[in-house]
């Protein structure tokens, strides 16, 4: 233990009388990656903020290479070699990459003017270390989120950082970018940087960490080298109970068609989309980031412009391009960007809960407070929302509970078609299994569910049927049997990426004859139909 990069001793912190950290002790060794896992609200972010000097602990101390960390002084912490890459990046979008890298420590010429040439040159050198091809002259806005993150990491690790704190670095980036992030993390490890990496994704912990520590309710409940623990151990430590099964059994599909989309032309995409979903059916939408899944959902709901086609809900055509019309016909959308498009953070649970169906709680424009309160309360308790009551501001709820509000606010009235966009993004594993349960319950109650998701296990385990999308069009349809085939993940990826779909005709045979273990009684008849765009040799 002689060699310690960062040491946290008995850290405690309370906010407004509520303890968030209760005596956490943690050491980081140089050249190691420590995964910090825990549910939302377990104290991970507070821990990171204290370790990076942004926040002063009520009790305890942080030592950097034996020296106490200057608290509440991010600059001093940076000089001591501690840097943090926050979850929500704050680059200056309209400035160039090299300007962002050098902001606050600009290089100057002898005359005291900015030395842009030197900064651009040094920026190139800094970025080259990570083998990423980013033009230092590019505007930050033109880069993808993943590349912006790498610029941020470069910026923070360049000044001789000894300790790097990464706060949920993969929450907003695509799978390909995750691989690149891993490369960068590995290089930093080789250079002897100690890293603390928060995440709640198991595969990430496995891929990158040497050691795993788990926070629960502000206390450290696990601190083990990674090989010594199983995934189940980690999950159990995180949620404090055994998680029997993440995914519930999917209920059988009904007979009646609830959603019929014909020739829907989403503005900005070349091809029209057709799809139909029956009552009780969960239709997954798979594809890479930017494949047009979000756009399709938004167009069906009317918040994104569509130029042609029909959307028919339970036998009635819905006026296109009008969310209000879609809502009154029984459609509901749970958007991808919870904070940006789902909840109104400045309003409380009651107001958020009644917003989509306000007119059903009014009489001549006046709110019927009693009916409104009862309906929202019922809806919220049906999803087991954990809040301090209806007047709690949604901004103070955890991510999982915010997502429950976004979902449950539709349940104060009748819903035929539920459109879900990344329903569990940024939601911890405990709340996640609850959300899955809610989704299947809603399907069982007769809703048709369309769920776009980048989380492959989610699509595979929860959907009766899945469509793979690429560039705004549906390139393949996989039924339940195809979804439970062993190599389906690779197949979906190839379809989504537009690669030649391997040499094998994959799961197609099993879809026909012998019954796979799961699936409803009325399974869709089409066995793995593949659109003409991918010439797969179906036998």
């Amino acid at each position, binding site marked *: 233990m002689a060699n310690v990069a960062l040491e946290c001793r008995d850290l405690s912190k309370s*906010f*407004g*009388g*509520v303890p*968030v950290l209760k005596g956490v002790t943690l050491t980081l060794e140089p050249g190691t990656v420590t995964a910090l896992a*825990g*549910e*939302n*609200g*377990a104290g991970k972010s507070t821990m990171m903020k204290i370790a990076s000097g942004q926040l002063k602990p009520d009790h305890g101390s942080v030592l950097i290479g034996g020296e106490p960390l200057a608290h509440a002084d991010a600059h001093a912490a940076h000089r001591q070699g501690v840097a943090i890459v926050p979850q929500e990046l704050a680059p200056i979008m309209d400035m160039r990459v090299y300007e962002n890298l050098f902001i606050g420590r600009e290089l100057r010429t002898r005359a005291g003017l900015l030395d842009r040439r030197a900064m651009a040159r040094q920026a190139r050198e800094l970025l080259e270390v990570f083998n990423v091809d980013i033009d230092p002259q590019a505007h930050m806005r033109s880069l993808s989120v993943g590349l912006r993150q790498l610029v941020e990491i470069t910026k923070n690790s360049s000044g001789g950082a000894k300790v790097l704190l990464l706060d949920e670095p993969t929450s907003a980036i695509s799978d390909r970018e995750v691989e690149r992030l891993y490369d960068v993390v590995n290089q930093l490890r080789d250079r002897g940087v100690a890293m603390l990496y928060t995440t709640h994704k198991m595969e990430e912990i496995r891929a990158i960490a040497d050691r795993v520590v788990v926070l*629960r*309710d502000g206390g450290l409940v696990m601190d083990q080298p990674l090989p010594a623990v199983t995934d189940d151990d980690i999950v159990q430590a*995180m*949620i*404090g109970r055994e998680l029997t099964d993440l995914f519930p059994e999917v209920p059988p599909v009904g007979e009646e068609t609830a959603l019929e989309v014909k020739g829907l032309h989403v503005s900005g995409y070349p091809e029209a989309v057709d799809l139909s979903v029956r009552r009780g059916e969960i239709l997954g939408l798979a594809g890479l980031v930017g494949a047009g899944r979000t756009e399709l959902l938004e167009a069906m*709901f009317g*918040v994104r412009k569509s130029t042609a086609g029909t959307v028919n809900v339970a036998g009635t055509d819905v006026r296109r391009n009008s*969310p*209000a019309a*879609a*809502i*009154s016909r029984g459609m509901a*959308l749970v*958007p991808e*960007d919870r904070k*940006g*498009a*789902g*909840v*109104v*953070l*400045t*309003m409380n649970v009651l*107001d958020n809960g*009644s*917003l*989509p169906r*306000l*007119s059903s*709680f*009014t009489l001549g*424009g*006046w*709110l019927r*407070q009693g009916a409104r309160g009862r309906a929202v309360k019922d809806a*919220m*308790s049906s999803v*087991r*929302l*954990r*809040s*301090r*009551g*209806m007047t709690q501001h949604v901004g*103070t709820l*955890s991510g999982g509970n915010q997502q429950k509000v976004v979902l449950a*606010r539709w349940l104060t009235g009748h819903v035929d078609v539920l459109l879900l966009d990344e329903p569990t993004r940024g939601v*911890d594993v*405990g709340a996640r299994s609850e959300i899955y349960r809610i989704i299947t319950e809603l399907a069982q109650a007769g809703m048709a569910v369309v769920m776009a998701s980048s989380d492959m296990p989610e699509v595979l385990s929860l959907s009766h049927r899945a469509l793979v999308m690429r560039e705004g069009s549906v390139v393949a349809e996989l039924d339940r049997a195809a979804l439970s085939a062993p190599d389906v993940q690779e197949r979906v990826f190839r379809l989504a990426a537009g690669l030649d779909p391997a040499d094998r005709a994959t799961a197609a045979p099993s879809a026909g004859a012998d019954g796979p273990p799961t699936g409803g009684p009325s399974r869709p008849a089409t066995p793995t139909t593949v659109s003409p765009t991918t010439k797969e040799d179906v036998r």
Partner: protein
Amino acid sequence: MSTQQAAPGQQSAGTGTDQGAAARYSGAWVRDQLIRHAMVVVMLLIIAYFSYRSARFGTLENIQTIGIAAAPFALIALGQTLVILTGGIDLSVGSIIALSAMSAAATVKGHPERLWLSVLVALFVGLAAGAVNGFLVAKVNVPPFIATLGMLTTASGLAYVVGSGAPINGLPGDFGKIANNQILGLQIPVVVMIVGILALALIMARTSYGMRIYAVGGNPVAAQIAGVKTGRILFSVYAISGVLAGLSGVMLASRVISGPPNLGQGYELDAIAAVVIGGASLLGGRGSIWGTALGLLLIQTLNNGLDILVVPAYWQSVIKGVLIVAAVAVDVWSTRRRVV
């Protein structure tokens, strides 16, 4: 509330309520309340100071004076509150006051026997100007600052056009009735102000329209997905702001029984100040009618108190500016103390 589960990651509120019962009326509780209502405390301190310095300040007559002075500001501050709640701003209300006052004066001059017509014309002119603002913001997507800045200049120019560059004088004395007649012992503008505050406070708290305004200001994208017709809401708040400015204009013109084309100049800044002092966020979604009423009261009490103490006008301006910023700083500080 749902049943408390023995779930992790939940900073339950149980402890808070238990402590609340035990600690009520203790020193910490009193301090907490003082911080929570910092603006009210500031207000009471100011009133106490003026009452101590002058015997005249607290008289019924002086309170009436404050009310009469506050009324025209109150109307535009109410409209401004709605606009600011949607995340916008209306810089044109001062000019709309001038334009509608001039239009009302011109109408009265032409039809001296029909007072109601002048009121109607003023309201219509205000509505039209507000509707143009609303159209530009909601449909053309011009930033509110720019759209209403354009209207500020345009309406101000039109006010001079109406009077051919000069004030409209020689109006019948009856025109003064609008501002000076009394209902239940209160002058009409004071009654209009009180009714306006109560009505809007009720609308904002108890109608779906009010809630939609908060939603549009808090998160326009989320509001749209929840089926709120955001364009209509935006349009309506500018239209309402315009109508209220028109009403304010005709009352001001009636008070001076003339039509000065520079009436209401700079009023928009006092209105915005009142809204912001009342705790509204210029980013939208946060604020209230009661807050605005309090902010308005603060500014008007200062004006009145400093007048009574015969503080020179230029010093009044300095003191007012400093106190407004100080009041908001205290409020920001106290908000940060409550929610870390």
